[in-house]
């Protein structure tokens, strides 16, 4: 690693003793490898010597996650190359030390962007973003970092290197995302890029009453508008910004909303609509700009807010609480009252659309009384957020800072289960110790859970005791889990039990919409989540797992775990749900889930095309993506026939226009387009037909680009079929095709931890399709 690759001199130890929070902690030494092999070597050697290791990107995290007490800091800053940008496939492969903004700039000229854009993006690294599951204003529309990392190379605590993908049978990558450097170290990331909207407009709306701003937010989302960003600044924040930099906000505003709208076509920008919503909600002033420099000017005050707070106060503590979207105004009021009660000024910035707020507590560190009062306010804010069903951290992570508070949010059984996850990856417990999970054993009371979930869990416990294998899909107790427990239009969530069929859910949701259909007509929520299979809706809405905000799982020890909640962003602890989603019942039985919903589109339009072969299908898909992206683009192919399904969702006007445009493009290529009245089921029919033909179907996600499709088809032989969409093709094979490698260590250990007697779906094994 070179002479300056391993440092023990004091100036180096000191300068790796901090991150962007207050406390500092001196490491023994600092290692700065230059490539993935060196990273593995460092971890191997450290493991052998029993030295704890703390990975570090740019050390810009806000929860104390990058600092270590007496261990080795493993700096990833020298793995800073962008390895590949593939605009056609909308992907990039990067090393973990690349700064977020550097990737943005590299892909901008292709009309693409990397959606997660935390405020630290000019310095925070992609590896850090992945480890913290970073958010940012754009996440309202596009999702958090975990939804944009498709594959990764990681190194485990003992130096073992693994290649992981979100498509793996056991979603180890999903578990590592947001794990704050405690499960694995990222050495390479394959990330998703999204098209930049061609037209942008920014609105600034000032309100005399905070509640009016909240109303505007709720109505905007309910109207089916998903802005590129929707940021709220409360009156105190506005006042400070005006005082420090005179950004031009109206001084009497109790809340200011900054809303950014984007669309591929100027006519689709819901600008007038959103302006009307703001005015009707009581906005005293609404300004809109479309030209780039003028839009920037509107954002200037919001962007400099932290700087203004830093200048107005000797010290600032930033909190990161997130509540269900419709509880945001109440949460803000509670924060204000807490600040007033203790005499602490707390300007608030919020990602309004997500319910994620950042109270900034201004205080003077040299004033002991003031410090105490600040802590009192901090405490009240945490209590208020938990009381409203929220999470103590939506973006910044737990680190060292919030470990103790985690106990107030997560049940002992959940913390214990998370501890098992940690051990599955790092049995020696030396990768970034002292972070995320609190120390010590949890006191788990074995109180019985009421209701059908509890009954199911007890059935599992009995089976485990007797060593009887359980076919999870046909557990009789699942039939009792047939309730739609709650639907919240304000928060766009529904809590649904596993036995509810997706068809029935769709009927009950009315003006709300859960886009996924499941592999068969009778598919239940539980099946959908347990299988985690790609389907046409994934093209627009992402993976099924990403639409699950909370999960209730019965485990083989008779417990019921409640993971996650009803909030859009949650990084409190591990994303343990991802162990159970898509693992087909081999680790636990899903009994209920909190699903993310969308407003139902005004119109949908479907078309089917019959390309001559895979090569033509690939060309057509490229052609269609070059224009405005459709909302469904699903290919089905078996050696006899190729079909392409096209779908558009949105307002009647938008659907008509885009449908016509697509038809025009296709007809110019000489392709006949069949309109379809209802949603075509070619993809389901194909699987059915193959099941008949082969007596079962084995699905395997393929990492195929459009350019590779035809060649793959030519080589594939006769016992194979294909379905899927760009970025998500799946090969279909007769059962018994041994194509998977043995499962990685952590997956095996997870199975051993959660199902020690191996009773859950033993016919599926671990990590086998």
């Amino acid at each position, binding site marked *: 690693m070179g002479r300056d690759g391993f440092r023990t001199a004091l*100036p*180096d130890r000191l300068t790796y003793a901090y*991150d*962007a929070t207050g406390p500092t902690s001196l490491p023994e030494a600092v290692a700065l490898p230059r490539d993935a092999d060196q990273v593995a070597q460092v971890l191997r050697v450290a493991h052998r010597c029993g030295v704890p290791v703390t990975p570090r990107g740019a050390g810009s995290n806000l929860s104390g996650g990058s600092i270590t007490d007496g261990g080795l800091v493993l700096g990833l*800053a020298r793995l800073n190359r962008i390895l590949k940008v593939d605009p056609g496939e909308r992907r990039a492969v990067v090393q973990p030390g690349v700064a977020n903004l550097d990737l943005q700039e590299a892909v901008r000229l292709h009309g693409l962007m990397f959606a997660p854009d935390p405020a630290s993006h000019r*310095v925070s690294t992609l590896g850090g973003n992945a480890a913290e599951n970073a958010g940012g204003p754009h996440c309202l529309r596009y999702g958090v970092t975990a939804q944009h990392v498709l594959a990764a190379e990681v190194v485990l605590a003992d130096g073992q290197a693994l290649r992981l993908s979100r498509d793996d049978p056991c979603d180890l990558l999903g578990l590592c995302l947001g794990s704050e450097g405690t499960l694995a170290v990222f050495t390479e990331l394959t990330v998703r890029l999204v098209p930049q909207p061609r037209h942008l407009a920014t609105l600034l709306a000032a309100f005399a009453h905070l509640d009016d701003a909240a109303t505007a937010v709720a109505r905007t989302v309910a109207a089916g508008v998903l802005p590129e960003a929707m940021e709220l600044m409360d009156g105190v924040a506005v006042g400070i910004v005006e005082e420090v930099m005179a950004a031009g906000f109206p001084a009497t505003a109790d809340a200011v909303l900054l809303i950014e709208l984007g669309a591929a076509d100027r006519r689709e920008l819901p600008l007038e609509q959103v302006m009307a919503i703001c005015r009707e909600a009581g906005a005293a002033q609404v300004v809109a700009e479309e030209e780039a420099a003028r839009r920037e000017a509107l954002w200037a005050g919001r962007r400099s807010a932290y700087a203004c707070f*830093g*200048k107005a106060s000797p010290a600032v503590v930033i909190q990161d609480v997130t509540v269900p979207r419709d509880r945001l105004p109440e949460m803000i009021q509670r924060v204000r009252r807490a600040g007033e009660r203790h005499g602490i000024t707390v300007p608030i910035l919020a990602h309004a659309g997500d319910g994620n707020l950042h109270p900034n507590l201004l205080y003077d560190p040299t004033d002991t009384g003031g410090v105490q009062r600040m802590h009192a306010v901090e405490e009240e804010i945490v209590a208020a957020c938990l009381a409203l069903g929220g999470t103590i951290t939506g973006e910044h992570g737990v680190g060292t800072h919030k470990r103790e508070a985690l106990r107030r949010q997560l049940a002992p059984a959940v913390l214990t289960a998370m501890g098992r996850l940690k051990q599955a990856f790092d049995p020696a417990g030396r990768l970034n110790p002292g972070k995320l999970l609190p120390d010590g054993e949890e006191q788990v009371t074995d109180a019985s859970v009421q209701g059908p979930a509890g009954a199911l869990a007890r059935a599992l416990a009995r089976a485990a005791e007797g060593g009887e294998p359980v076919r999870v899909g046909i557990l009789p107790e699942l039939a009792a889990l047939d309730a739609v427990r709650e639907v919240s239009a304000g928060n766009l969530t529904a809590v649904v039990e596993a036995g509810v069929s997706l068809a029935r859910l769709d009927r009950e949701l009315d003006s709300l919409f859960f886009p996924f259909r499941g592999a068969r007509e009778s598919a239940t929520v539980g099946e959908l989540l347990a299988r985690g299979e790609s389907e046409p809706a994934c093209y627009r809405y992402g993976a099924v797992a990403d639409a699950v905000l909370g999960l209730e799982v019965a485990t083989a020890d008779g417990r019921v775990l409640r993971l996650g909640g009803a909030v859009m962003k949650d990084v409190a602890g591990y994303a343990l749900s991802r162990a159970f989603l898509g693992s087909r019942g081999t680790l636990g039985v899903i009994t209920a889930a909190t699903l993310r919903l969308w407003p139902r589109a005004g119109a949908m339009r479907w078309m089917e095309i019959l390309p001559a072969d895979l090569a033509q299908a690939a060309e057509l898909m490229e052609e269609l993506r070059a224009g405005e992206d459709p909302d469904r683009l699903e290919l089905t192919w078996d050696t006899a026939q190729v079909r392409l399904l096209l779908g558009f969702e949105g307002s009647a006007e938008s659907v008509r226009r885009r449908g016509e445009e697509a038809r025009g493009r296709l007809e110019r290529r000489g392709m006949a387009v069949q309109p379809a009245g209802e949603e075509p089921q070619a993809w389901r029919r194909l699987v059915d037909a193959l099941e008949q033909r082969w007596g079962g179907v084995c699905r395997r996600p393929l990492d195929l680009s459009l350019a590779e499709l035809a060649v793959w088809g030519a080589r594939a032989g006769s016992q194979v079929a294909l379905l899927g969409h760009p970025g998500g093709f799946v090969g279909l094979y007769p059962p018994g095709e041994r194509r998977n490698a043995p499962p990685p260590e952590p997956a095996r250990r997870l199975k051993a931890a959660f199902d020690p007697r191996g009773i859950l779906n033993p016919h599926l094994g671990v990590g086998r399709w």
Partner: protein
Amino acid sequence: MVDQERCARCGFCLSVCPSYAATDLERHAPRGRLFLLREARAGRLASAQLAEPLDTCLRCGRCREVCPLDLAVDKAVLDRLERPADPLWRLLPGPGTRLPGGLVRGAARLTGAIPPGMPPGGARRLLEGVVRRPSGKARWRVGYFPGCVHEYLLPRAALATVRVLVAAGAAVEVLPWGCCGLPARSAGHREVARRLARANLASLPSGLDALITDCASCAAALLEYPELLPEERHSAGKMVALVRELSAFLTEAGALPPTRIGRKVTYHQPCHLEAAWRASPRQLLDAAALFREAPGAERCCGGAGTYFLRQPAISRRILEEKLGGLAAVGAEVVATNCPSCALQLARGVRRAGLPFAVTSVSEVLAEVYG
């Protein structure tokens, strides 16, 4: 005195610091340096261990521009470096003093400061004391301060500047000034810098409409005279009000290039160039030639005065990154308005055998204003 306690350690400075970009080591980043200064002040770090982190700072000032709290880390580093000057620094020429040009140039060639193939072109004697007038009535009366690097190592750039100003209609008096004081200040010899500044101020002619300089570093030094000489703040302030970088003056005065040459030109922005003056060189080059903005035009060249001699490895890495960006734009000429940068770039171009020439903005302008 920068309040080191205020640093929130957000790390924004890491994204613009040239030495951090070269080594990826936190002690070579402003955030790290500020932390070490704090630890040294608290007695937890010996002064000797502070030397290398501070010396590797280029004093480019980019950190100050991005810091949300406006912390002037480069100033904090400078303040810490202050020490009594050793006698050698007294050799910096004051007004009316001249160093033997041939000797200076010879030394510069020996150290590699001037690469072969970059002839200085012309002697200062042609500039000194003379007031150059345009044909016809002069629209302005300006003082011109070329700075030591132009004067001793690249006088042809200074000659071009005078030609451009005269062609634009100005009567140009080359100021009888000595060194602006920046080299001394950068090395921590504040007293030497103050002496030079005082002497310069005392010999400022009256009745000037503007004080033109085409060295971004000298300009930055002049703008700091009020802070350097608080006891003469008034006269220093009056001088500062007159200071204009060459391109800024020409654009302000509406004296735009009359024609365009068909040469492909790109621009290197010196770190010390005031923010308000960054658009003008590009505007003028765009009007005068076929201009393309290079990726990384604002990146540091790594020259930083004598830095390239003191920290050759880091200087070279910074320069390599810089040249990569410049080469990518396919220009024939890279123009800049700091002769110290010009020499650094020229050294790198020569070493890497790159196919473009390095010149001053004024030399490009001289081809069209002529």
